[in-house]
Every structure is written in structure tokens, then in C-alpha cells.
């Protein structure tokens, strides 16, 4: 009897040990290289449906190209050369042979087709395939008028980006900026708007007066900016769709550096009088104006935090220009930048964790980020002259403008828009028809 008990007990312990014997290995590192992705060309499902004019547009090719361009520019994807694709687009969309796609070292694959439905709308279907796991991981059909094919391509790009990176995309967005033409002395500055990839460029003002610092509200239909209309520098609001323009607030002096609150209900700006500028906010509906700072120094460039509870701004109250944070009612002002040099144009990230800024140190201009408590300062790029960072809606990319030195008296100098990843990599120029400055990124158009 004792023997049996002994055996069972020891067997029990033996089995327990066995069951815990699984070897555990921690994988804490990986590859941060761009994900290899194949974008199979989209195709016309039933070419007879498409009118000759539509066929001429070659939307199938163009949509695939826009998607490829978006994914490449993000720096997170490596598009595999379409020449190496073995399967035809049609079969790839219906039932891909995953071995073929794995052979060219792609880990994911995109396929899609175009149709014209009974209401003469363009219908674009796309599918995202996990080549390694051999399954479909995303599929969608989108409808729009054939003219909006570009937006469809951007929305598809966003879906792919979101599904593979785990955060929302930023391709279906627009950028507003100041288009500059003419010589340095007679500069003409117009407001311009374009898609984030530089296409669909349009001018919103004629260039009769100087415009500066345009900013979107969260719906991306209204912009606020500063204009020297009748040589009076003031903050204006413009509805892009209706074209209605109005002065913001009734201030007895110069207002500048406007920005919307995250919910779009308020505009925050600087108001300058007698060499002193302070920060004010105005409720758009009730038109109630509130003074937030009152200090005999220059307080400017205010920006709300993502939750609207705090405001960051720059001020020279300590003697040199530095970044400060305060509550949205103006209380508890706290300096957060303590590095060498001057800090300006703070912008709070839409994710809420970081503040982007321009830093001037020893005659060089830097774009950098720091946490909202001032710690973890990281400079992303250095140049002769660059400033005014603006966040992509997912808080991963910054857009800013950069000026070249030019010759004597600034002759031949040019300015252009650039974007850079939060990581400090993937610096890219954004092509604009003219010189450009003061860019601002909209939120996602299709929320």
C-alpha cells in the first residue's frame, strides 16, 4: 500500500514537472526593415462597362500606382517590383497561389478590381492577403464617382496601412500651405491646398495680400490663417467649401498665430499690443474672448493638447524664447524646455504624448520632439533654415518647410515642403508647383 502511495505521489510530482517543462524563449528583437509587400495591378472586371473616355483614363493602373506611391513614401513598406509577379491580376484577386507570392519574398499582397455599377458609379474592390499565413486579412468595396478615384486609392492605402501597422493611416488627408512666387522683395503669397501626396493642387486666395500660418480645423473644411488685408494683420477664418471668409474676433490690434482647438469649437491665437503679446482664445459660436496669459513678454504660437486640457506656447519671459505648458484656462504655467538655444513653434502631437518644435542653436535650425513634460528631447533634422512643424493625423510624420541659403541678399533662395518620420528617418521632399512655406496637415477626411 505504502509503495503504491509513494509511486503515485512521485509520479504526480514528475508529471507536474513535465508539464512545466515547456521551454520559453523571449523574443524581444526583430527586424525594423520595411515590410515586403506586393501590389498586384488592379484590373477592369468587365471592360465593356467602361466608356471609352473612362478606359482612356486607365484608372486601374492609376489606382495601383497611387497606392504603391503612398505605401513607399511612408517608409514602412517595400514594394516588390511588379515585373517579378508571376500570377495575373485577375487570378491573384480571386484565388492567389501563395507559393508564387512567397517565392518573390513578399509577406503581404494587395489585389483589386474595378467595376461600374448600375448607378454609373465606380466600384473598387480590394483584398489584402497575408502571403505567409495564406489567408485574406482585409477586404473592402468602395463606391464613388469615377472622378474621385484618387480618394478611393488613398482610402485603400489607409486601410492597408492600418491593418499592417496597427495605427490609423494618413493618406486620405490634405495639406494647406502658403504658395510663394515672385522675387524676394515682391513676394506674392497665396493660400494653397493639395492632397498629402502633392496632387490636386488648388489656390484659395489670389495673392493680393500677404497670408501666413494657415491651419485646419478637425473637420478639414474650415481653415484659420493670418492675413494682411488692408495692411491690417488679423486672424481670418475661411470655409473651403462655401468660400465664406470672416475676421476672427474684434481686437484693437494685430492678431496672429491662430490654431483650432481639437474639438474645433475654439480658436486660440496671439494678440499684440504695445510690444507685448499675450494668448487669447475665442469660442467660435458665442464669440466670447478669453485672455489666457498676461505677462509683459512675448507669448505666442499656442497649440492645444490632443485632449484640449492643456496649451503649449513659446515665451521669452525667462529672457530667451522657450517652450511652456499651461492648463487650458491659463493657470499653472510651467516651462518645459531647458536645452541650449532658442525653442519655438511648439505643436502638440495628435497622439498626445509628444510636442514638436523648432530649435535654433548656433545659427542652425532643428526640428525636434520632446515629451509634454520636457523630457526626452530628440532632434530629428538639422538645416540652414527650417521651421513650423505640423503633425500627420496619426502622429507619426511631421511636415515642415525648409529654405535654401541662396546668393547675396537671399537671391535665388527657395523654400519647399519636407516631411520626416518621428524616428528621424525617411526625410522626403513634397513637390509643389511653386515655392512653399507654412504647411499644415488636415485630419483624416473619412473618419
Amino acid at each position, binding site marked *: 500500500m505504502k509503495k503504491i502511495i509513494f509511486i503515485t505521489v512521485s509520479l504526480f510530482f514528475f508529471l507536474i*514537472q513535465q508539464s512545466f*517543462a*515547456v*521551454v*520559453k*524563449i*523571449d*523574443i*524581444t*528583437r*526583430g*527586424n*525594423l*526593415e520595411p*515590410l515586403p509587400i506586393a501590389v498586384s495591378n488592379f484590373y477592369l472586371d468587365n471592360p465593356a462597362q467602361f466608356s471609352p473616355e473612362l478606359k482612356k483614363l486607365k484608372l486601374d493602373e492609376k489606382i495601383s500606382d497611387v497606392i504603391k506611391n503612398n505605401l513607399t513614401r511612408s517608409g*514602412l513598406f517595400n514594394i516588390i517590383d511588379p515585373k517579378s509577379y508571376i500570377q495575373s491580376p485577375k487570378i491573384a484577386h480571386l484565388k492567389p497561389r501563395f507559393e508564387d507570392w512567397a517565392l518573390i519574398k513578399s*509577406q503581404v499582397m494587395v489585389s483589386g478590381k474595378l467595376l461600374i455599377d448600375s448607378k454609373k458609379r465606380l466600384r473598387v474592390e480590394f483584398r489584402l492577403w*497575408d502571403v*505567409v*499565413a495564406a489567408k485574406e*486579412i482585409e477586404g473592402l468595396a468602395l463606391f464613388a464617382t469615377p472622378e474621385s478615384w484618387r480618394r478611393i486609392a488613398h482610402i485603400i492605402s489607409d486601410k492597408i*496601412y492600418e*491593418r*499592417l*501597422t*496597427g*495605427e490609423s493611416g494618413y493618406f486620405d488627408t490634405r495639406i494647406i500651405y502658403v504658395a510663394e512666387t515672385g522675387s524676394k522683395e515682391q513676394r506674392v503669397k497665396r493660400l494653397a491646398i493639395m492632397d498629402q501626396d502633392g496632387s490636386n493642387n488648388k489656390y484659395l486666395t489670389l495673392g493680393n495680400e500677404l497670408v501666413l500660418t494657415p491651419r485646419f480645423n478637425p473637420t478639414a473644411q474650415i481653415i484659420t490663417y493670418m492675413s494682411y488685408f488692408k495692411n491690417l494683420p488679423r486672424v481670418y477664418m475661411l470655409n473651403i467649401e462655401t468660400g465664406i471668409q470672416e475676421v476672427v474676433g474684434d481686437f484693437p490690434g494685430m492678431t496672429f498665430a491662430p490654431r483650432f482647438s481639437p474639438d474645433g469649437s475654439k480658436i486660440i491665437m496671439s494678440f499684440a499690443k504695445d510690444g507685448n503679446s499675450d494668448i487669447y482664445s475665442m469660442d467660435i459660436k458665442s464669440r466670447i474672448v478669453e485672455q489666457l496669459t498676461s505677462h509683459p513678454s512675448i507669448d505666442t504660437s499656442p497649440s492645444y493638447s490632443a485632449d484640449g486640457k492643456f496649451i503649449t506656447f513659446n515665451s521669452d519671459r525667462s529672457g530667451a524664447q522657450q517652450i511652456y505648458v499651461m492648463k487650458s484656462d491659463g493657470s499653472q504655467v510651467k516651462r518645459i524646455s531647458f536645452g541650449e538655444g532658442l525653442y519655438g513653434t511648439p505643436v502638440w502631437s495628435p497622439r498626445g*504624448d509628444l510636442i514638436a518644435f523648432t530649435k535654433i542653436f548656433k545659427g542652425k535650425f532643428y526640428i525636434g520632439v520632446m515629451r509634454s513634460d520636457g523630457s526626452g528631447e530628440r532632434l530629428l533634422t538639422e538645416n540652414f533654415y527650417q521651421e513650423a512643424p505640423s503633425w500627420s493625423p*496619426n502622429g*507619426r510624420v511631421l511636415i515642415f518647410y525648409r529654405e535654401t541659403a541662396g546668393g547675396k541678399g537671399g537671391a535665388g533662395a527657395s523654400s519647399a515642403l519636407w516631411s520626416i518620420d518621428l*524616428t528621424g528617418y525617411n526625410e522626403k521632399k513634397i513637390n509643389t508647383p511653386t515655392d512653399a512655406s507654412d504647411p499644415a496637415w488636415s485630419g483624416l477626411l473619412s473618419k
Partner: protein
Amino acid sequence: MYKSVSLSILFHSIMIILTALSLPFMTKKPIMAPPVIAVDLIQISEKTQLPFAPKAKEIIEKIKEEKEKRVVTKQAPPKITPKEKPKTVPLPKELKIEKKEEDKKKQNPEEVKELSRQSSEFEKKELFDPNKIAALIDKSKEEIAEVQKKQTLELTQNQDSRVMLDKGLTLSQEDAIKAQIYKCWNIPLGLPYDQNLLVRIRLKLNQDGTIVSSEILDHARMNRPGQGFYKVLAESALRAVKLCNPLRMPTTGYDRWKDLQLNFDAKEMLRG
């Protein structure tokens, strides 16, 4: 009977009281305890088993062949006969002659013994091999790996009997597996790094390292609201496992690694 029991109780209680009195907390002086240092016990194999480059394998095989040519028999070591030595030991001729002369002069029995030991088949491996001079000069990693492989290969039988007692893999075996997976895993870059980013995958492996099954242990979390990023992460980990199939596993101790759990954690990488 009762007397002995009561005596036993008495002495035991005295012992307990004495022990209690001598315990540190009884003394009033606070003792400065040294800081606690956590120590992870890791297992280290006698020889590090590094993964081998394919080129190194070729070299190993070449050397093996050469060795086989040279070895006349694989039986017990030849008997102590210093005269036979020159036939089996591939030392340069000049050296051999010199040594012979020394032996004759000294006539030291110990010296003779040493020479005779050189001729033993087991000791020969430890000896300087002129055929490998080139390999020694070229200090590439492959060659180092090759030398180690030679030694480990011959040790495997001994290891096996020892290894059955301990569980888990040695540090170097674990590192070899990690290195493989690191290469296969494309970390999705948009994950929120302030969240829990741990994906646990249980693998069942064949003896040749091919994966029989892979299973995500926290599967339920994939479809929880607000955890969309977790699905992305879990899928990337699964892709890594599949891309790495078959895994190059140790040649021994299948029982220890037939079930593996990989804990993928992207936090460190993403926070930078």
C-alpha cells in the same frame, strides 16, 4: 516510554527556545541587510554550440575525410611503443628527429611516457595539426565554429545521458533560436508602445525542426475591442514563425525542445 517522550519534548523545546533566542529579530540591533540581487540560473553546455555557416560545414566534412584517411584503425590506442610514433604523428620531420635524439640522451621514463601518449588516437585531436595551419591563420568565424563542432560532435553521446536530467535549453542553444527568429520578425511599427505588447506562441516541433503546429495563447485578446493593434502584432509574430520554418534546432535533446513557447515582446524595440 512516557519518560523518554517527555524528555524528548523537553530537550526539543529547549532547542527551540535557544534557536528562537539566537534569531536575528530577537537582537535589538537592526541589521543592515545587503541588497537582494536576483540571479537567473542559466545552463551552459560544455562547449558552445554555435550555428554553423554552410561553408563551415563543407570545411568540417573535408577535414573529417582527411582525418579518416590518416587514421589507420579506430580501435584501442596503440601500445606504448615510442618507435612506432613517427608513423601516426604527422609532425614535421626535423622535429621528430630532434625529439628522438633527446629521448636517447635523457633516457627518462617519464619523457618516454609523454611521447607515447602523443601517439594515442584520442590525444591527437588536441595536438597541433599541420594540415590546419591555413585554417588557423585565417581567423574567420567559420573555422572557429568548425573546430568547436568537431569537439561537440564527439561529445554528444556523453552529453545525452547528462542532459536528460536537466530541463530547458542551454543559453547558447536559446540564443541560436532567438537569432533565427529575430531575422524573420518584421515588427509592425505603429503599435502603441505604452500598451502590453506581449504575444505568446506555443510551438510543436518535429525532430528536424519543422513546425507541426503554432498556436497563439491569448487568442481571445485578438478580438477584444480597442485591442486591434494586438491582432496586428500577433499576426506578425505568426508570420515570423512561419517564415523561420524549419527552425535549425540542436541535434540532441529533442524531448526538451519539442514543445517551445515563444514570447514575442515588441516593447523594447518600439520604445527605442
